[in-house]
């Protein structure tokens, strides 16, 4: 167990080593861009270290870090859209290259994941972020709302819309 709460600073480097891959995955899925994801992870560790006293051990270290990444990614995406005044890069596909023993099954799984990744990437960032945090990383609505700076009701609405759009893109629209 990493004992950040007791000021054992050696633990921080170990924390970075153990979690950076996972945090990068979350940051990438939220921002849809590898460079931005690296920046977000960097910011997140700086923020985590500065606010390490706020970690009370009620959640796991990973959940605590997920919340920090969510907050950093949200700020990063807002800043980017303000500065560039252009459409965010929503078309970056999420690629998963994990090996598998069965090539045929792996091909189907990889194809499905690519389709899902592309559908996720095509969502507007504000919807995508909520879907990623809730449905992929299982953060509670309360935490999502707090880190994105929105109300819980807004988080639920965005989740509903995001899921609906994803379903439509993956399976087509439901016939009326």
């Amino acid at each position, binding site marked *: 167990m990493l004992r950040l709460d007791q000021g054992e*600073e*050696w633990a*921080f*480097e170990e924390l*970075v*080593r153990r979690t*950076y*891959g*996972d945090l*990068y*995955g979350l940051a*990438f*899925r939220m921002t849809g861009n*590898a460079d931005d994801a*690296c920046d977000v*992870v*960097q910011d997140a*560790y*700086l923020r985590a*270290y*500065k606010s390490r006293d706020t970690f009370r051990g009620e959640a796991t270290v990973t959940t605590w870090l997920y919340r920090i990444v969510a907050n950093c990614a949200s700020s990063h995406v807002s800043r980017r859209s303000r500065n560039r005044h252009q459409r965010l890069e929503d078309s970056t596909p*999420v*690629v*998963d*290259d*994990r090996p598998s023993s069965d090539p045929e099954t792996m091909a189907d799984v990889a194809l*499905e*994941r690519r389709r*899902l*990744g592309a559908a996720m990437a095509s969502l507007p960032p504000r919807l995508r972020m909520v*879907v990623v945090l809730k*449905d*992929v*990383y*299982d953060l509670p609505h309360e935490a999502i709302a707090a880190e994105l700076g929105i109300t819980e009701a807004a988080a639920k609405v965005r*989740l*509903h819309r995001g*899921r609906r759009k*994803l*379903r439509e893109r*993956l*399976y087509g629209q*439901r*016939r*009326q």
Partner: protein
Amino acid sequence: MNRRCQATITALAELASEAAEVPNGVSAHVEECFRCRGELARHRKLLRRLRQLRECGLEPPPRLLDQLLENLSESPETASAVSGWWRRRVNYLLVAVAATGAAGTGAVLLVLRGRAGTRLAG
């Protein structure tokens, strides 16, 4: 699609994720409505696949860890927290410099010995 189905659509996502706040009657309607049962199956499939995404890690750029530790070691607030990494990096560089020096010296000695051998043979 009847009115009951329309009212059910918004609740299906909650039902799929097995959240507690499913309105009364929704489960019962889904049980008897073929169309809504199909819709629920799609919801569940989507959620299952989204949850699986977390387990399939995205490969971070190969130099990310080094860059993170380097940047953290350069920041005054976090430098002490990653000082171990910095010391190891310095030690690594010193060893690399020493090894290069030793290899260079060895090469020079070999060349000199080779020349001396050539002269003696001549």
